[in-house]
């Protein structure tokens, strides 16, 4: 019954999305400003309900079978288990290929439903075209699940139990959040993509087009940022090695759309303020989604060797066909129609905000290309040169660190230069204080024994960025206070509310600076030691010591756990008891480490159990001190929070009056980071005083 319902839901979603393509295309062809209100569009909106119903139905069917342990369903027989806790039973949906595609469908249909019922304001013919493209994408993925996967196949006779999901996927609460966030991010890129195609078809890449693209890119970027940082934190917490980013092909696949979307958000600024580069912004919107699809292909096809890949999935060729068709189709559209998108306009003189943003775009895209190259290089080497090569962290670090440092420099300078261009003298005046602060930080750190050129540069540049941001905030508040002749508290309040969009952008930048400090410190100054301890012995490193007091074994039906009990003494005299463990999952014959991490603002003490002797008298323990790791998570949180603040629809309450007074061409203001172009000029003047 469940299987039948699930298959029916998929078929419903598939036919509804096929039908909706036609309806939206008709609505678009009837066109005009009110394409979204024509009869076909009204019918298509019901289609969106049906698509959502199909996806929700399919997901609900699998979840129901998982939760009720209905092992007659093949997916449950392979991924369910009666001994898995409820939380991980629910998350089992995305622990394997078939189910994760269902989650993909759920997210995609969510986007379709939201867009169908809350179209970006005054989007005109853009909206139905974009909807048609989204429905096409939905039809593809519904078809993929319906015809190639075996999500709803039944098993006769039903086995009495299953092995449960992979141990790594039933051992950490992030399993419930990280994959959905990543999917929301990846699939969110489909919306800018759809609007890009619509823009190419209609030739309309005006302000309203940009607003729609920016809103959804920013939303997807927020989810992707949170997802990637959460994934890094998850690896850090379970892999037992203190690493959070391994440049694994699948990790790279999540970084690629993130990099391109970041570039897109910045090139959108150029387009907003200078009306320049529409074709470039549009290409980035296309590339972000194509790279997200490419990432899905890499994860599911077994083409690259990765820890995170789904095993044995048959969808490789079909996904490849989809990605290639999208790429060729849109590349042709871009090339043939790019010059129909409006006259070419200058981005500004050499020393202008536009130039800084352009350089930022070049570097981000080059970084993305480098990561893509490294990921696919082993494949190319085997095909073209018949050589077996590996590309790993040393390559990526060597390439990414210099690019990241220059980007950091741009982050310090970019927000300071004006759109209309600057004299070098003025720039020097404005940057003198931040540069002096950065230089002092570097000098003090170097004198106090901090070594290494790249980390010192990173610390210096991060402090320049932070100082620039701080200086801007202080001067704006001071100016507000002077203009309104009010108290500090009130000025801060006005500043926080009135300039929320710019502030949220600055918060994201500050988050990047904080995260960079954490990354530089933890990758350069982590110390670790590994020792075989007899009970009563201790291991110590940089003032932290751990004494083995015993080994404890526990066993449940699901997992056998061996924990080393250690007494940890820190330099500040704090004593704590920790019990890092090794957890063996008999159903998979797999052992998962459960390290203990004690965090504070200066860094983490990271204790891992590596091995235990048969008789429990000895344990091999790894003790590491990872400085400033917490800063990475804090920085990531600031980035996600900043982006979310920028998204917050602040004008909904008084939206209608604002909308009419400003005219419809401005479109929906949700997510526009900096709605008042004049504010930069005001700011510049304020600082000059």
């Amino acid at each position, binding site marked *: 019954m469940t299987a039948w319902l699930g298959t029916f839901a998929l078929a419903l979603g598939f036919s509804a999305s096929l039908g909706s393509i036609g309806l939206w295309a008709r609505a678009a062809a009837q066109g005009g400003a009110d394409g979204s209100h024509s009869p076909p569009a009204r019918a298509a909106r019901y289609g969106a309900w049906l698509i959502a119903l199909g996806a929700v139905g399919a997901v609900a069917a699998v979840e129901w079978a998982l939760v009720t342990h209905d092992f007659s369903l093949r997916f449950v027989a392979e991924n369910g288990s009666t001994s898995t806790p409820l939380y991980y039973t629910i998350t089992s949906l995305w622990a394997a290929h078939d189910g994760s595609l269902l989650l993909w469908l759920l997210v995609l249909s969510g986007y379709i439903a939201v867009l169908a019922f809350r179209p970006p304001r005054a989007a005109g013919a853009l909206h139905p075209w974009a909807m048609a493209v989204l429905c096409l994408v939905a039809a593809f993925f519904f078809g993929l699940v319906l015809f190639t996967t075996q999500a709803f196949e039944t098993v006769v006779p039903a086995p009495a139990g299953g092995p449960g999901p992979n141990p790594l996927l039933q051992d950490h609460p992030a399993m419930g959040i990280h994959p959905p966030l990543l999917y929301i991010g990846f699939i969110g890129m489909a919306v800018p993509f759809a609007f890009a195609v619509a823009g190419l078809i209609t030739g309309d890449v005006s302000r309203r087009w940009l607003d729609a693209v920016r809103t959804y890119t920013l939303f997807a970027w927020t989810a992707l940022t949170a997802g990637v940082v959460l994934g890094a934190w998850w690896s850090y917490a379970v892999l037992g090695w203190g690493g959070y980013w391994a440049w694994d092909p699948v990790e790279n696949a999540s970084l690629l759309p993130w990099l391109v979307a970041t570039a897109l958000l910045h090139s959108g600024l150029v387009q907003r303020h200078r009306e320049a580069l529409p074709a470039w912004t549009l290409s980035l919107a296309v590339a972000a989604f194509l790279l997200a699809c490419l990432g899905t292909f890499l994860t599911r096809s077994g083409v*690259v060797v990765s820890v995170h890949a789904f095993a044995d999935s048959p969808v490789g060729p079909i996904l*490849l066909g989809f990605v290639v068709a999208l790429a060729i189709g849109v590349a042709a559209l871009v090339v043939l129609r790019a010059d129909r998108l409006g006259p070419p306009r200058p981005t500004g003189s050499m020393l202008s905000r536009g130039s800084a943003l352009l350089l930022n775009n070049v570097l981000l895209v080059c970084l993305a290309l480098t990561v893509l190259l490294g990921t696919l290089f082993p*494949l190319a080497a085997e095909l073209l040169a018949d050589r077996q090569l590996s590309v790993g962290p040393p390559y990526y670090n060597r390439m990414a660190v210099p690019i990241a440092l220059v980007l950091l420099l741009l982050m310090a300078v970019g927000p300071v230069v004006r759109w209309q261009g600057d004299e070098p003298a003025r720039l020097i005046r404005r940057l003198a204080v931040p540069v002096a602060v950065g230089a002092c930080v570097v000098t003090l750190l170097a004198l106090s024994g901090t070594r290494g050129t790249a980390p010192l540069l990173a610390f210096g540049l991060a402090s320049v960025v932070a100082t620039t941001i701080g200086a801007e905030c202080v001067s704006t508040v001071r100016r507000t206070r002077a203009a309104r002749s009010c108290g500090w508290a009130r000025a801060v309040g006005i500043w926080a509310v009135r300039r929320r969009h710019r502030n949220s952008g600055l918060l994201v930048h500050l988050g990047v600076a904080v995260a960079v400090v954490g990354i530089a410190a933890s990758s350069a100054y982590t110390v670790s030691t590994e020792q075989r301890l007899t009970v009563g012995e201790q291991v110590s490193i940089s003032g932290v010591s751990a004494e083995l007091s015993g080994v404890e074994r526990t066993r449940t039906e699901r997992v056998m756990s061996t924990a080393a009990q250690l007494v940890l003494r820190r330099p500040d005299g704090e004593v704590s008891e920790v019990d890092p463990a090794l957890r063996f999952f008999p159903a998979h014959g797999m052992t998962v480490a459960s390290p203990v991490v004690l965090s504070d603002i200066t860094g983490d003490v990271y204790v891992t159990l590596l091995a235990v002797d*048969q008789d429990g008298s000895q344990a091999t323990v790894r003790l590491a001190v990872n400085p400033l790791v917490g800063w990475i998570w804090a920085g990531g949180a600031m980035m996600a929070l900043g982006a979310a603040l920028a998204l917050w629809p602040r004008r909904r309450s008084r939206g209608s009056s604002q909308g009419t007074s400003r005219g419809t061409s401005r479109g929906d203001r949700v997510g526009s980071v900096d709605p008042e172009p004049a504010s930069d000029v005001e700011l510049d003047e304020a600082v000059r005083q």
Partner: protein
Amino acid sequence: MTAGQTRHVAVAVSVLAVAGLAVLLATGLGSAGSQSSSSALVGDPAPPLAGRTLQGTHFSLDSLDGAVVLVNIWASWCGPCREEIPLLVAAKRNWADSGVELVTINTRDGPAAARSMLRELGATELRSVRDPQGELAVAWGAAGVPETYVVDRDGIVRARRVGVVTEQWLREQLSPLVAR
């Protein structure tokens, strides 16, 4: 360049890039999962192999100069090794007349556990060089256990096998070397 030319170049470049990427990934699909087990060591002189054995004596590979040698890497914690060791012992017996010697490296293992496994398998006489840190296994380019290498009379590594050996593989590898 005129706008028209630029556009043609752009068309060509983007189509080529997409097509190239597609061909690359398609080829990758075809060969996914294939992992070669050829060793860089095959054709090179055998790495040194010497140390204390499980039986407490000293052994060096040099003492078997002029013999065809099977070098096997095993450990008591490795399941397949349990199946393989009787096979190797039998092979040594069958090929002894042709001058084939068997040496094993007991890697990352406790001597007590290793000895008790050999007792269980009735192979207490198996010549096993102890390699508690696994450095010998690494020197032989091993990726895991079990692995088996064939060294010819001139001390050159001729073949490597990842995983349990079969009688057929041993015959294929040893026959031509013994014949010389």
